[in-house]
């Protein structure tokens, strides 16, 4: 029975940190840092324990009834563990980064409290065992990220916050309606009980299609599928660690993860396929991938470009899901992790450039590689990964996507992948060129917008080490994709569960 408490404790590590942080005075930054870091480490440890337990075939579940027929359920499965692992890993990195990033800025207490809450919601989403619990944390995520988005408090941030709320709350509402409708149809939907909907019979099929669309609409907002993506580029006004977290794990991934759950654990891939919904997902994601890449190409500032790149990359996950067959599944799931690692690296780098040199626009980046070689190296790794070049993790995703597309009988998707790679290259390689091969202020041409010397190295160690760590991780995730416990391995585990009855 004690195992049932493990998910709960994992959730509590970050959930309880929030009030504790609020209780600490604003000036006690050391205590806050220690608290944050120890909680992050503890959580990583607990998630590790659960992953090991999962491989040993143990069951972890915790639940109680909220109202008759509706259960709060935390459960550990391979899919959730992937997401939880990612979030706890990146939480650790981002906490370190945020401590350095927000040094000497106001409202740190509030920031870290909501930051913890945000991670707690992400963990909750990962551990949710049914749609009700999922929805709970999904909405909590919206709430806890809003103060982070408007953290700076200037009018642009507030406007972005308003847009963010408009999108996400409406999406959440639509999702709520969908989930309630599903609940009214078949009762409590525990993830993995796919037979509930499958056994409904053909007369329900049109209803199921409608429900799927409603749920997709709700989840698509956070996943930033194209007509619903408008909030993401604006949310860029948030501080860099927030952007990093929003893009890599928290909000965007929550949406994508929700779609994964919807397709695999609620409808079941077989039923989704039979209803013809996979084609819809494919079309949607393909359009998103190309459209967002084109938009990214037109951006002149670094963070918006990265934001559009996120929109495009997250759709890879949806694309992977929509390809019927184990390879597509593996691709989609592995990309959840891969994209998280790579994108978080890129955002850390963007933050480093902004903090150390005051760089926000792409044309200010000339020669920054010579001033900040390690950061630029990390950026290079991330960018190459986004393009899908080996040995960075992005290649693995792309490979499986391509193979999955062929197996799903849609080889034309490869063309989309290739086009997307080219577009990615078209908007990342010029940046790399500027970083490494253009003469800039370091060569006596012009000067940095706002240079500060934050640390002994090229920038403050708090900022540098997380950046390097995630870069190395994203490299290793690709280079050593075949070893046990790698993202690919976990994804394969999930996919086998899904396709083997």
């Amino acid at each position, binding site marked *: 029975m004690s195992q049932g408490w493990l998910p709960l404790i994992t959730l509590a590590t970050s959930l309880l940190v929030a009030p504790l942080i*609020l209780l600490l005075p604003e000036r006690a930054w050391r205590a806050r840092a220690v608290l944050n870091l120890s909680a992050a480490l503890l959580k990583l440890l607990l998630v590790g324990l659960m992953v090991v337990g999962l491989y040993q075939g143990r069951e972890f579940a915790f639940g*109680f*009834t*909220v*109202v*008759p027929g*509706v259960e*709060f359920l935390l459960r550990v499965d391979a899919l959730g563990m992937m997401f939880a692992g990612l979030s706890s890993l990146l939480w650790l990195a981002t906490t370190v980064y945020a401590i350095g990033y927000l040094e000497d800025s*106001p*409202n740190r*207490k*509030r920031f870290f409290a909501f930051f913890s809450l945000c991670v707690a919601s992400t963990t909750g989403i990962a551990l949710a065992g049914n749609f*009700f619990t999922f*929805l*709970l*944390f999904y*909405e*909590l995520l*919206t*709430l806890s990220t*809003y*103060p982070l988005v*408007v*953290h*700076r*408090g*200037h009018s642009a*941030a*507030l406007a972005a*916050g*308003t847009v963010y*709320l408009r999108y996400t*709350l*409406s999406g*959440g*509402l639509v999702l*709520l*309606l969908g989930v*309630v*409708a599903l*609940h*009214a149809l078949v009762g409590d939907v525990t993830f993995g009980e796919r037979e509930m909907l499958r056994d409904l019979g053909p007369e329900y099929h049109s209803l199921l299609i409608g429900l799927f669309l409603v749920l997709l609409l709700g989840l698509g907002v956070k996943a930033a599928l194209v007509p619903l993506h408008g909030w993401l580029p604006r949310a860029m006004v948030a501080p860099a660690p927030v952007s990093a977290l929003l893009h890599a794990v928290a909000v965007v991934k929550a949406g994508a993860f929700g779609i994964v759950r919807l397709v695999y654990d609620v409808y079941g891939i077989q039923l989704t396929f039979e209803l013809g919904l996979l084609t819809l997902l494919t079309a949607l994601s393909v359009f998103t991938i190309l459209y967002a890449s084109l938009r990214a190409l037109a951006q002149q500032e670094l963070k918006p470009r990265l934001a559009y790149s996120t929109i495009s990359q997250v759709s890879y996950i949806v694309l992977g899901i929509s390809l019927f067959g184990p390879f597509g599944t593996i691709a989609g799931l592995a990309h959840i992790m891969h994209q998280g690692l790579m994108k978080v690296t890129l955002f850390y780098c963007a933050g480093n450039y902004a903090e150390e040199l005051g760089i926000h626009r792409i044309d200010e980046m000339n020669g920054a590689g010579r001033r900040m070689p390690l950061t630029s190296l990390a950026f290079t790794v991330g960018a190459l990964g986004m393009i899908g070049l080996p040995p960075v993790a992005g290649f693995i995703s792309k490979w499986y996507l391509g193979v999955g597309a062929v197996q799903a009988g849609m080889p034309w998707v490869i063309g989309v992948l290739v086009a997307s790679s080219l577009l990615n290259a078209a908007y990342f390689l010029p940046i790399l060129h500027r970083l490494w091969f253009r003469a800039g202020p370091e060569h006596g041409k012009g000067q940095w917008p706002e240079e500060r010397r934050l640390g002994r190295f090229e920038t403050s160690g708090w900022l540098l080490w997380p950046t390097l760590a995630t870069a190395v991780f994203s490299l290793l995730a690709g280079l050593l994709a075949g070893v046990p416990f790698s993202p690919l391995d976990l994804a394969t585990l999930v996919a086998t569960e899904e396709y083997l009855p």
Partner: protein
Amino acid sequence: MIERLGLVTTQLPTTGSSMMTLLVVLLPLLLGMLGGAWRPWRGWPGLVVALLSLLALVWLTQQIATHGTQAWVLDLGTLTLHWRANGLTLLLLLLTQLLVLASAAYAPAYLCDAVQARGRGPAWLWPLMGLLATSLSLIWLAADLLSLYIGLELMGLTAVGLMLLPGREEALAAGMRYLLLALIGSLAFLLGVALLLGGWGRLDLAGLAEAVEPGPLLWVAMALLSAGLLLKAAAFPLHAWLAPVHGSAWTPVSALHAALVIKASFFIALQLWLVLAPRAAMAAWLVGGMGAAAVVWGGLLAWRADKLKDVVAWSTVSQLGYLLIAFPLLIGTSQAVVSIAWGGVWLQLLAHSLAKAAMFLAVGNLMLATGESRVSGLAGASRRFPLSLLSFGIAAISLVGLPPSAGFTAKWLLLHASLAAGQWPWLVVLALGTLLSAAYMFRVFRYSFVEDVELQDYRPVPLRMDLIAMALALASLLLGLTASWPLAILAIAGGVP
């Protein structure tokens, strides 16, 4: 349906529970009198004594959980009064005691801070508050129309008196309007009661439930009763007195009023409908339609309101609309729908009461601290009054109906019930209401996050005031996941047929 209301019972009350019930009803009044005599400037001593009635209530709960619904028949000569206590009653009593307690604990510090003992107002606060608690308890317990009428009138007049206490001009004008409309409302109620009495010659609800037969007399009586109660409950087209009244009232009074007084009228109306016209689906739809209009209208006006208290007051109008949707969901629908909606309605009532009280208290704190009553005066508040704002935020979560609050769970149940009943319009209404309430709540937050504002002088409020608001807000939040607990109380002893 009347079983759910605890009107059918064969249980005779135990002496202990009778005593306890009396204690629960009368103790607040007694304490109020004492408070009026002594005018406490500290909340704690009174609070400790007031815990007595809470303890009595707990004991009563225990009794009823073991023995089932209890009913009392009071013979006063030829006049018979009927009282009963079941799960629902207990829940409402509990809520009342809790909120009155919280307001009472909040009031001394508030009065000290805000009013500085101007006039005789503060002396009247305590007895009136006690009286309010008593009359509310009476309403929850009453099982006949006479008791209900007495409770209703007592409550109405007390509420007017409480609202008038600040003694400022705008308070008086609004209060006068409130008084007149409340009186008219009770006249309509009385007229309805008169018709019922004339038609079937009895006033006890259980008896009436069996006796009444549909016909013009019943319909007219019900129409009059409902119209009067809806006026008192500030349902949509009859809501106009509400916002001005709150604008100038004292914060703890506003909290009590929005949380309980309005709910009492709603409770009576719903009870009468369930007892007397359980199949009048069409009329229930009309009430639901009023609710829908209330949701939209209240939401829109709250969104654009300039003053903080107006935002909260208009939000009350809007939220009451959610409760009015209970009518079409509970009346003339199948048993399955009713069993879902029943929990949803009362949970919504609980959630809204707690959250609204918390919100009024939090708003009071913010207004005291900033010295500003307008929403835009909150600029920069998030840095300076994090606790007040946090309690406001948590209460807002529940009001908007975002998880994991009780408001969310209630909304879930209501949505589920609407779907199960096939009544699609309510889905739209609930959705709209959520969006609107999110819009006006987050508008407040938006101002509070503004950073570039010069630091004006402000007075921090005592921590205890913040803590009380926080406690209520947390209660409304935590009820979301522990909703099975109030639902279990609802279900005990006659809650489920």
